[in-house]
């Protein structure tokens, strides 16, 4: 049963990821990204990371994809070719594909990832566990993230401001 759900979710996410890459229209791509994120959130649920699944849907599907859709519809992007297969690009793509296939093959053939059964966290109290970790072990990173968000906010305000006449554009 769990295996079946995993297979369905993984095929779904992979198909939607391919949809992001292959769709000609950027709006369709964003919709495929949304579905792919939903699939990944389902996989998180299977891994018993319920809170992370919730946050993924909230932050990614709710905020990030919505922002993408806004920008795609704001900027008119018709015209121009969709793909680039030229000289260096095709070569780089081929080399990257060979490297990635080699790596995957190594992982599949020789990988010993400690294939034991999943060890459970104490399910149900995961929010408590996360907050305990965040406020003890990871207190400094949390502060740094706060500053990062603040700086990103200021950066966005500066970038999206229209330049006043007689002033250089940012």
């Amino acid at each position, binding site marked *: 049963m769990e295996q079946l759900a995993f297979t369905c979710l993984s095929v779904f996410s992979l198909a939607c990821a391919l949809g992001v890459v292959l769709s000609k229209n950027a709006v369709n791509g964003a919709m495929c990204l949304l579905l*792919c994120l939903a699939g990944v959130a389902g996989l998180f649920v*299977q891994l018993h990371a319920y809170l992370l699944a919730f946050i993924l849907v909230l*932050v990614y599907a709710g905020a990030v994809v919505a922002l993408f859709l806004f920008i795609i519809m704001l*900027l008119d992007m018709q015209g121009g070719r969709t793909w680039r297969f030229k000289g260096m690009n095709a070569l*780089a793509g081929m080399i990257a594909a060979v490297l990635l296939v080699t790596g*995957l093959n190594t992982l599949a053939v020789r990988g010993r990832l400690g294939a034991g059964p*999943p060890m459970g966290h104490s399910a149900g109290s995961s929010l408590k566990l996360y907050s305990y970790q965040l406020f003890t072990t990871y207190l400094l990173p949390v502060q740094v993230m706060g500053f990062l968000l603040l700086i990103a906010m200021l950066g966005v305000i500066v970038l999206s401001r229209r330049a006043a006449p007689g002033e250089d554009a940012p």
Partner: protein
Amino acid sequence: MTPSLEAYVMLSAALFVVGFLGVLLRRNTLVIYMCLELMLVAATLALVAFSRFNGTEDGDVFVFFILTVAAAEVAVGLAIIVALFRARQTVQVDQLDSLKH
């Protein structure tokens, strides 16, 4: 029967490869950016799977931070793309070649 760790890692690698191909082969800056997000999510999936199969919380907490940074990154990146579009009236990467010698 539960899926193994290898299955999760392979799936995450496959998602990463798809995103990577998108970054290499597409021309539209926004689509490239969406593919970057896809790669980030693939890495996130691997982290959560490792964390689950090793019985630790550290991978999950790390995913929190990745999500935070991704949100900030998307905001700044899209602001840059909009500024770029205002200046150049295009978001196709092959027309944004002012820095080419």
